[in-house]
C-alpha cells in the first residue's frame, strides 16, 4: 500500500464548494500557466505544483528521521538552573541586573512592577560532562551521563511572553490558536507507517498541576481532522470510548461498522463532503485500534532491567517515566509523532525546591529513553526533543533570599536539546551573555527550530503547504531558516 495515498485520494473527492473553487481558479490558472509556458501547461511545471502543493512529492529529500518523540516540558524549565551556567550571576548574587542588559524589554505584569531586579545565581552545582564538555547542573545526573549524545541549542528565543501563546507558537507556528500542530503537519505530509495506530499520539503526565493543556495544541487546525493527535490516557481506557460496550462482540461491531460505511458511502456519493471520508477512516482506525492499542499499552512483557533503566516510576502508568517507556514502544511501532507533555515547570517562586521535584520526575526517564532507543537502533531514525516554550529570567521574581528565589518568564533566550537521527552529537549551538539574559551567538527562533525539525524528516518547510481561507499556510508560515549547525 502506498503510504501517501490517503490524502491524495481525499483530494480527488470534492465538496460542491471545492468543485467550484477548484474549477474556476484551477482552470483559470491552467490557462495562465499555458500562456506563460505552453510546454509546461500539462506537465509537472513548478507553477502547477505551487497551485496544488498536495501533489508535491514527499519527502522533498532523503529524510534522516522517520519519527519524532517530543518531550515537551510545559511551563518553561529554568535554563539557568539546568543547562546555561552563568557564574557571573553567582558572583553578583543580589545585585541589580544592569539596565543596559534589560534594555527596552517588555516584562510580564507579574514582575514589571518590582522595584528591584536582583540577580539570582543558581543554587545548583554545575559540571561539564562527557568528551563534549557540555555543562549541566546536578539536577540532571542521568541526562548528564549521556551528554555526548545530545545537541544543545542555548540560543532559542520566541515572540510570546506568556504560556498559552508561547506553547501555541512552538507547537503550531503561530501565537494565535487555529493552526495545525507540528504532528498534524507531519501526519498530513508523510502519511502513516502503521495502519493500526494513529500517526500522531499524545501522552500527558497524569496528576500534574500548572499551566493548562488544551487539545488544540495537538489539533489539526484547518487540516482534515484525521490528522489530529490522539491522546492515549493512562489507566483502563487508553483511548476513551474505544472498547465495545458490554455484550457487543467484536464481530457484531465489525458488521455494524460495515453497514455504517455503506450508508456513509451513499451519503458521500450524494453530497461529496471530504469530511465524510475522514469519518469513515476514523471509524476504521478506531476498530483496528481496539486490538492495537491494548497491545502497545501493555508493558507486562518488559523485563525488569528496562523498568530499572527508566526508574521506579515507570511501573506506575501515567507518570513521565511510564510515558517515556510507552513512547519507545510507539516508536517501535512506527508511530510518526509522539508528543509527551510534562507540566509543572512554571516556577515563579520557590524555584529551588520545585525544580528538584520536576527534574527528578523527568531526568532518569529522559536519559533512559534515549539510551533504550540507541541500543535498539531506533535512535538512527528517531529524533528526540526535550524543551519548554520559553526561558526564565536571571533576576528573582519576588524576594531574593540566599536559599530561595523565583524566576519570571523570559522569551529572549532558553535552552532545548535534541538527540538522534541526523543531529550532531555532543555539540552546543549558540550562547547567551554573561548574565544569561540576551543571546550573543547564533539566535534560533522557534520557526528556525521548526524548519530544522521538518528538514530532518525530509520536508522543505517552505514547500509543505495547505490552502485555507484563500491562502496557503505552512508550519513556519512566512518565516523560518534551517539551522545548518544542527545537522550531522
Amino acid at each position: 500500500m502506498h503510504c501517501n495515498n490517503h490524502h491524495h485520494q481525499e483530494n480527488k473527492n470534492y465538496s460542491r464548494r471545492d468543485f467550484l473553487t477548484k474549477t474556476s481558479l484551477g482552470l483559470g490558472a491552467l490557462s495562465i500557466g499555458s500562456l506563460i509556458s505552453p510546454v509546461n501547461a500539462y506537465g509537472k511545471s513548478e507553477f502547477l505544483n505551487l497551485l496544488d502543493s498536495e501533489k508535491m512529492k514527499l519527502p522533498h529529500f532523503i529524510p534522516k528521521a522517520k519519527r519524532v518523540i517530543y518531550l515537551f516540558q510545559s511551563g518553561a524549565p529554568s535554563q539557568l538552573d539546568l543547562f546555561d551556567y552563568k557564574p557571573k550571576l553567582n558572583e553578583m548574587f543580589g545585585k541589580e541586573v544592569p539596565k543596559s542588559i534589560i534594555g527596552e524589554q517588555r516584562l510580564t505584569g507579574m514582575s514589571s512592577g518590582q522595584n528591584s531586579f536582583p540577580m539570582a545565581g543558581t543554587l545548583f552545582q554545575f559540571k561539564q560532562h562527557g568528551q563534549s564538555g557540555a555543562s549541566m547542573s546536578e539536577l540532571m545526573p542521568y541526562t548528564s551521563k549521556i551528554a555526548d549524545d545530545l545537541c544543545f541549542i542555548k540560543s532559542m528565543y520566541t515572540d510570546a511572553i506568556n504560556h498559552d501563546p508561547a506553547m501555541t507558537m512552538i507547537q503550531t507556528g503561530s501565537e494565535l490558536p487555529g493552526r495545525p500542530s507540528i504532528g498534524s503537519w507531519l501526519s498530513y505530509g508523510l502519511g502513516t507507517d502503521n495502519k493500526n495506530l494513529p500517526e500522531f499520539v499524545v501522552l500527558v503526565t497524569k496528576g500534574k498541576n500548572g499551566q493548562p493543556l488544551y487539545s488544540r495544541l495537538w489539533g489539526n487546525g484547518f487540516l482534515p481532522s484525521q490528522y489530529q493527535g490522539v491522546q492515549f490516557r493512562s489507566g483502563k481506557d487508553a483511548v476513551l470510548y474505544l472498547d465495545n460496550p458490554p455484550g457487543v462482540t467484536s464481530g457484531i461491531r465489525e458488521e455494524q461498522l460495515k453497514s455504517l460505511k455503506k450508508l456513509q458511502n451513499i451519503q458521500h456519493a450524494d453530497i461529496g463532503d471530504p469530511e465524510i471520508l475522514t469519518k469513515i477512516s476514523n471509524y476504521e482506525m478506531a476498530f483496528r485500534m481496539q486490538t492495537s492499542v491494548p497491545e502497545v499499552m501493555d508493558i507486562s512483557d518488559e523485563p525488569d532491567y528496562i523498568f530499572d533503566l527508566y526508574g521506579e516510576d515507570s511501573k506506575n502508568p501515567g507518570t513521565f517515566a511510564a510515558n517515556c517507556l510507552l513512547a519507545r514502544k510507539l516508536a517501535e511501532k512506527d508511530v510518526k509523532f509522539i508528543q509527551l507533555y510534562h507540566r509543572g515547570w512554571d516556577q515563579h517562586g520557590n524555584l529551588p525546591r520545585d525544580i528538584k521535584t520536576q527534574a527528578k520526575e523527568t531526568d532518569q526517564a529522559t536519559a533512559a529513553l534515549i539510551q533504550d532507543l540507541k541500543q535498539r537502533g531506533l535512535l538512527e531514525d528517531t529524533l528526540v526533543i526535550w524543551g519548554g516554550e520559553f526561558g526564565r529570567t536571571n533576576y528573582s521574581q519576588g524576594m531574593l533570599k540566599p536559599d530561595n528565589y523565583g524566576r519570571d518568564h523570559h522569551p529572549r533566550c532558553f535552552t532545548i536539546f535534541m538527540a538522534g537521527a541526523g543531529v550532531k552529537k555532543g555539540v552546543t549551538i549558540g550562547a547567551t551573555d554573561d548574565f544569561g539574559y540576551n543571546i550573543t551567538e547564533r539566535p534560533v527562533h522557534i520557526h528556525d527550530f521548526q524548519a530544522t525539525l521538518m528538514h530532518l524528516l525530509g520536508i522543505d518547510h517552505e514547500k509543505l503547504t495547505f490552502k485555507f481561507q484563500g491562502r496557503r499556510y505552512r508550519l513556519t508560515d512566512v518565516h523560518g531558516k534551517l539551522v545548518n549547525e544542527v545537522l550531522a
Partner: protein
Amino acid sequence: MLSEILDFLGSLHPLIVHLPIGIILLTIAIDVFMRNKNNSIQRVITMGWFFSFFSGLLAVLFGWFLGDNGYYLESQITIHRWSGVALVGVFFIIWILRYLNFRFSRSTNRSINMTAIFLLLVTGHYGGEMTHGQNYLFENLPYVKKKISVMSISEVKRSETDSIFVYEDLVYPVFEEKCMACHNQNQTYGGLNMSSFESIVKGGKSGAGIQKGSPFESLVYKRVSFPQNHPKFMPPTGVPLSYDQIAILEWWIDNGAERQMPVTLARKEPKIQRLMELQYGLDLREKSYLETLKLRTLSQNDLKALEDERYIWRFINPEESFLDVKFTAKKIQTPDLLNIQKVKENVTWLNLTDCMLNDDHLNYLSAFPNLTRLKIQRNQSVTDSGIEALKELKNLNELNLYGTRISDAAFISLGKIKSLKKLFVWNTLVTPGGIQSFIEQHPEVEVIGGL
C-alpha cells in the same frame, strides 16, 4: 533599481565636488581683479583661461611628484599624466592668443572649447580610476554585471564538491582579479609573475611568494594582509582582498598550499567550512552514498510486487526511486522475499523486524546492490551462518541484529562488509570481548552492544 541609481549618483560626488571649488575661486578672482574697471566680457574670458592655465600647471607639477613616488603603476598613470599635460598646453595657447588679442573665428573657438572639454574628461576619468579603482564609474549602475568571485564556481561544480580545488577554484580567481594586471608574464612588477602556480610559489625579488605551510613567511599572503596604509600593501589600488579571501588564502598556505588541495579538506576546520558555505554557497557536508546515487524512477508496474497489504513502503526521495520497505506480518516466507527482490535495485532501506526470518531467508537478501540500512532485529532464527550471505551487500551502512542469535563468529562475515558504519548487536550471543576485538580491527564501525 532606484537604490542602484542613487548609488551611481553618489559615486559621482567626488567628480562634481571639484566644480564649486574652481567656480567659487574664479568668481572671487573676477570680483577682486575686474570690478569697477568697466571690463568687457572678453577680458573676463581671457582671465578665466589664465586661471585655468595657472591652476592646471600647478596640478600637473604636483601630480608629477605624486606619480613619481611609486604608489602608482606607470601603465595606469600614462594616459592621465599626458592628457593632463596636453590640457594645460591647450590652456596656455588659448590664453596667450587671447592675451595678444588674436581673433578666433566662431568655429575655431568652438573646436578649441571642445578639445579642452574632451581632454578634461579623459584626464579626470583616468585620475578617478586611479584613486577609486577600475570600473568605479559604472560598477554601481543597474544591469552591470558585478565582478564577484562566487560567480567563478559553476552550479554544476558546486554540487560536486569533490571536484573543487582550493587553488584553482577559490584562490587563483582572486589572484587573477586582484594581482594579475601588474604581475603577469609581460609585466612582472617586483619580479613577480602570478600567471602560473610555479611562478607564484617562486615569488619575486623580495623573496618566495609562498612558503608552503607558513602563511606568515609567504609574501603573497603578507602583502595582502598588511594594514591598508602600509607602503607595501597589495593591491596598491582598487578594492583590497576581502576578509574571506584572505582567510581562505591563509588556510590554504597553512595546509601545505598544494595545487590539488580539495575544498573538502575544510571539513576539518568548521570556521573555513562555514565561510565557504556563506561566501561560495558550497555545501561541504559529507554526502552519503544515497545522496550521490541516481536510479530510474519506478513505474506502477514495478510496484505491483509490493501491492500486498503486508508490506508498508514509501519512497524516500522525490525522484521516487529509493524505497523504504517494511514487512509487517508476523511470519515472512520465501515468496515474500522474492517479491521484494523484484525491486532489489531500488530497495535502500529494508525492515524485517520480528517476522520469523531465518538463515535461509537471508540468502535472498544478498543481491540488493543499493541497500544501505537493514533491520533484521528480533528474529530468533537468525544465526552466524545466515549472516554470511550479507557480506555481498556492497553498500550496507547500518545493520541491526539485536535480539538475533548471532555470536562472535558472525564478526568474521561482518568484517567483510566494507561499507558498514553501524552495527547493533545488543541482546545477542556476542561477548564484550568479541565486540572489543572487532572494533580494534574495524575502528570505522560503531558497534552498539547495549548499555
